[in-house]
């Protein structure tokens, strides 16, 4: 699926898939307030792949969470596919995530009680998909785990678990995929395989990809990079980045 679902309201500007305007996020620590993000503005276009890089504690994960509608900002607006998600209720955001968003996490976040197949089926079932089993099996075959359908996460290696997670992320045909350090828990070689898989699937599906990563080669494979430092975001000069990572 390369297009937004039919019921999404297209506007001429919907070429912009994700927009953050004047985004700020603060956490109340009782007698103190911690500012995590400050005046963030950014735009990500349809089918673009974007990396958010920065030091630990710089606010990358918070930004990812806000863009994905997992949390709402203290100030500012997040628009996803034309919908101002930062103004939606928690349940509406959940519905929106079910229909349009996929996730990949550093710690895989597979449900230990479910098999690989069931983990992939889960978002399909939540989205009332007609044949969740068949679709899930197909995706697992695509990520190379066609023979591990009945294995539980505990019986899989880290790389295999992340492949299940990738299959799950693409299961509901998302238009945006958010990835939080997808190779962070993996060794270099496995990380590279996972990166290849992720980028390939992303290309095939035409998904917009927003990824937080420390993995510089992986970041370099994205079309654009945002640097985040002390809560402020700046877009990296792509040429300079390519120079650095060459």
């Amino acid at each position, binding site marked *: 699926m390369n297009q937004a679902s039919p019921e999404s309201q297209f506007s001429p500007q919907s070429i912009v898939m994700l927009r953050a305007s004047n985004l700020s996020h603060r*956490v109340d*620590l009782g007698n103190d307030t911690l500012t995590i993000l400050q005046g963030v503005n950014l735009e990500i276009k349809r089918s673009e792949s974007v990396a958010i890089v920065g030091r630990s504690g710089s606010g990358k*994960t918070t930004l*990812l*969470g806000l863009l994905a509608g*997992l*949390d709402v900002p203290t100030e500012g607006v997040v628009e996803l596919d034309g919908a101002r998600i930062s103004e939606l209720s*928690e*349940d509406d*955001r*959940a*519905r*929106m*995530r*079910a*229909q349009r*968003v996929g*996730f990949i*996490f550093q710690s895989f*976040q597979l*449900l230990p*009680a*479910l098999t690989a197949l*069931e*983990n992939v*089926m*889960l*978002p399909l*079932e*939540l*989205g009332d998909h007609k044949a*969740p*089993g068949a679709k899930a099996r197909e995706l697992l075959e695509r990520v190379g785990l066609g023979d591990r359908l009945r294995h539980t996460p505990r019986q899989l290696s880290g790389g295999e678990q992340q492949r299940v997670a990738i299959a799950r992320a693409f299961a*509901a045909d998302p238009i945006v995929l958010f990835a*939080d350090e997808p190779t962070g828990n993996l060794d270099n070689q496995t990380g590279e395989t996972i990166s290849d898989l992720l980028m390939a699937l992303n290309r095939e599906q035409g998904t917009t990809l927003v990824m937080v990563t420390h993995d510089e080669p992986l970041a370099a494979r994205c079309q654009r990079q945002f640097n985040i430092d002390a809560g402020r975001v700046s877009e990296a000069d792509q040429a300079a980045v390519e120079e650095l990572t060459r």
Partner: protein
Amino acid sequence: MMSATRKLTSVRRDWRERDVRVVLAALIVAVATVATIALFASQLQSTLVTSASAFLAGDRQLESENGEPIPAQWREEARSRGLETAQMVEFSTMVLAGDEFQLVSVKAVNKQYPLRGEIEFQKEPDASRQMVSRGPEQGEVWLNPRLLKLLNVSVGDSIEVGEKNLSVTGLLIRTPDGGFNMSALSPRIMMHAADVAATQVVQEGSRVEYVNLFAGEEPALESFYRWLQPRLGPSHEWESIRDGQALSDSLERAERFLLLGGSLAVLLAAVAVAVASRQYALNQRDTVALLKTLGLGSRSIGRLYLGRLSLWGLAGMVGGLLVSLPLFWLLTQLMAQALDQPVEPRLDVMALTPALLTALVSLFAFAYPPIRRLRDVPAMRVLRSQPGEAGEKAWLDVVIAAVAVFGLVWLYAREISLVLSLLGGMIALIAVLVLLGWCLVSSLKHMSGGGSAWRLALVGLYRHRRASLSQIAVFAMTLMLATTLILVRSSLLADWQAQLPEDTPNHFLINIAPDAVPEVEGFLKARDLPLDTLYPMVRGRLTQINGEPVREVVSKESDVGALNRELNLTWMSDLPEDNRIVAGEWFDPGQTEGVSVESELAEKLGVDVGDSLGFTIGSDTISEPVTSIRTVQWSSLKPNFYMAFPPGGALDGMPATWITSFYLESDEKSDLNEFARQFPTISVLEIDHIIERIQDIVRQVTQAIEAILALILAAAVVVMAAVVSATLQDRQREGALLRTLGGRQSLLVRSTMLEFALLGLFAGILGVVAAEVAVWALQYRMFEGEFRWHWQIVVPIPLISAVVLAFLGRWQLRPVLSVSPMLLLRRLE
């Protein structure tokens, strides 16, 4: 293929999770404990009531003291309501045999008598005793064995009762309703009611008591009584076994203890469910965050978990009932052994209601609040744990749980003082806990790790202070409940045994003329029989309160039995040992004014210190101010009096006889014959059989209580195990890490055992203190005992708790020691 979401909510999948297993186990224990107790209590009730009904020879008894038979229409009404009836007539008369004559009290019964219990009977003086279910046939009479000698007759002879000759066909040893009745003054004979008319002894105006017995289902008895009540005159007395003081005291205490046990079981179960489900909810947060990320709304999350909770509830109820049934059967068998009679297990389905209610309340008051809050877990948690999420709103859980607990306890025990006592104990516990927490934090703050097992243990306590304190709280509460139960049980049993010790006076001497007193004393002293105090007794009627006729002052509804008959008035200089002054002052030496009134009667009459009471004694009337109100141990079966005057007071010069009691062993019974010969005018009242039967019942109830106590203590152990296992994973991970970092196994074992021993010790001390507070309140309010420290329990309980917990801690460590740290860490991931 099962869908992933269905699988996520299936009980089978849940069962694979440890916390759910703990919740389910706790629920099963809860339902099983409450169900078993309820079933058993109901069984005990019905068995004891049946056995106690034998004291009346029926379930209810209606006495008519006005010399007129009870209308036949009343009996027909009773039969139409499905009740059985039996009749008897009681009167005193002279019987003759040749030249010998003797005053006897006659019990004439019809063929239905007795409706409950059996008559103990002997064919010949040397024959063995046997139980029979009906009295003598027409023309026959059974005699108290003493009468054989007094009348110089043997079985087969005949005696004259009034105008009727009756043939002696056996010896009457004991009737089921051999009640403790002061008016039964002389040896008893039993004959057929149909012979009474022919004796011509019972004439108009004779002192005769007509008694009707009723037996049947409780609702029928009650509806009959509702019909009967408006028709009863002042000379009618309706009695149920609850009115028989000594016995009803025992039953009531047993009942209260069972209720208390039941309530404590509820509390224990609640603790287990609360702890495990909270742990479960904490562990579910990641799953919920993921489901939310994948698009599940909070309402769906709520529904998902509510559905699971309902399934657990169902599983808990079914499992609990399945466990309780064999337990109940076992207890019934034990009871049958104790009673030495077959007991028909009676499955009282209604008794299961509280058990099922417990499951529901446990789930929705204790398990649901933390699980409900899963709806609020932020989706952002998939990316990282959110600040301030952990212990939030836990206080609300505590409030909900506390309300539910006390609601349940109240529901079962219907005793607000029980609820308040437990609440008091809990508050004391929490106060001490806060103090202890503060001490722990401030004294261990500067402790650094390393080296010895002691240091590691103390540092462990400090590092886990949150978990440690909540574990201490739960253990302490469990111990408090168990200790309360043990303490109440011991004092209950001690009270009972003290109430009717082995040498309780079991014979009364009544009607001792003043000049016979020294001779009686001499007679008993010569036989080395311990003699209780001799009390003077004057028969009189209470007629006025503050100058007003008593009938006008006291409303009809406040059914005061003492007004319907003559009271035994006495005078005494010293307050009997087991009496207690609750208002006013006991007589000073030399004081001649005043009267001391028994407290329950005073309450019914609305009489207080300072009011004046008027009595009619023969043709005299006296009036005295109330100077004190005292409690009386009616259950002691000693001479007890409603009204006591000072020596030389208003009763001086009134016609008095004396009364006393003494203890006689069963093989010394022949002394009674001699006594009867020497003092023909003195009545001997034998109550040895009554005392034996009460002692029997006390023994039965004691055994039942022991069984229930064992059950509840088992529940307490399950709770402890549940709480320990709640932190199992963290502790195992820590142990694995310690081993990875090079900690020796022995050090790990010693420090863990020490840490848990300290936990157990603190919890034990706390629990015992809280239990003492609760028991003090309970003793005072419910069991009317007095407070004292129970050193026999204050010392061992904390020690036992320390040892048990040390081994629980050791048991927790098992996987850490048997598996390689790496494997364990990976498994715990």
